[in-house]
């Protein structure tokens, strides 16, 4: 696994994700998602972080899909223009 140490990156390409960005990604992800486990050490595996991020986004997509399906079942019994929709809106805005 690649270590984030500047000496090993002799050949720095501008098209690659920089170390700083990986560190930023890790710290932000830790804030957002406590479940994401990254190695508790100074060395952070950049590719592992990317992998975790990808998995997390895939999970989020799946969740959106699942919720859309449930709503499709539920909302078929509610007319969008009816009073119930107004009630839902007011419930959610509080």
């Amino acid at each position: 696994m690649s270590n984030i140490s500047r000496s090993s990156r002799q050949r720095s390409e501008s098209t690659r994700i920089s170390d700083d960005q990986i560190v930023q990604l890790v710290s932000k992800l830790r804030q957002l998602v406590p479940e994401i486990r990254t190695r508790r050490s100074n060395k952070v595996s950049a590719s592992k972080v990317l992998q975790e991020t990808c998995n997390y986004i895939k999970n989020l997509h799946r969740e959106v899909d699942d919720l859309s399906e449930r709503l499709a079942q539920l909302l078929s019994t509610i007319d969008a223009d009816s009073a119930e929709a107004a009630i839902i809106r007011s419930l959610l805005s509080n």
Partner: protein
Amino acid sequence: MRNQSSVKQEFLRKWITGLRRYSCEKKNMSFFERKKAIKLSADLAMASTRDKTTRWSQALIANNTDNVFIASSSSSSPKKSSSSRSRNMTTLMRRSRPTRVKSAKKEMSSARCIAKRLMEKRTRKLKNLLPGGESMDEGCLVAETLDYIQSLRDQIEVMRCLVTASQLIINPS
């Protein structure tokens, strides 16, 4: 950090507007059509809350404008240009990928090569997951990813609320 509750409210408002349009346009939708409409209007509503400040949201809107069957003019211009533009850029980026250089120290370079290849592979994977990610340069990829993740989380939270509220309305027990 943007104000999360106002973002969620804006998302909800726009989402319901979109849903209304669908229900006016098409009566008697199949389950699959309804699900697709709900998901699409949710995605578009969330993307529009970003107000063109992020690339993923612009790409999402551009890519999906063809699919939206709104009750507006039937001669709406298809946004093929932007999607073909991103496709061309993808081809360009593929062609311009740097070739690997073999160094004298074979063991170290092979480890470095493997690590580099892994990074490239996973960066590509991330780009495929992000709307419009293929044509993004790595410089903005991380910021876009974080914004996209936060937006998805907000979207999911609001959708969950709606599921709960709908369940309560249907079964008020």
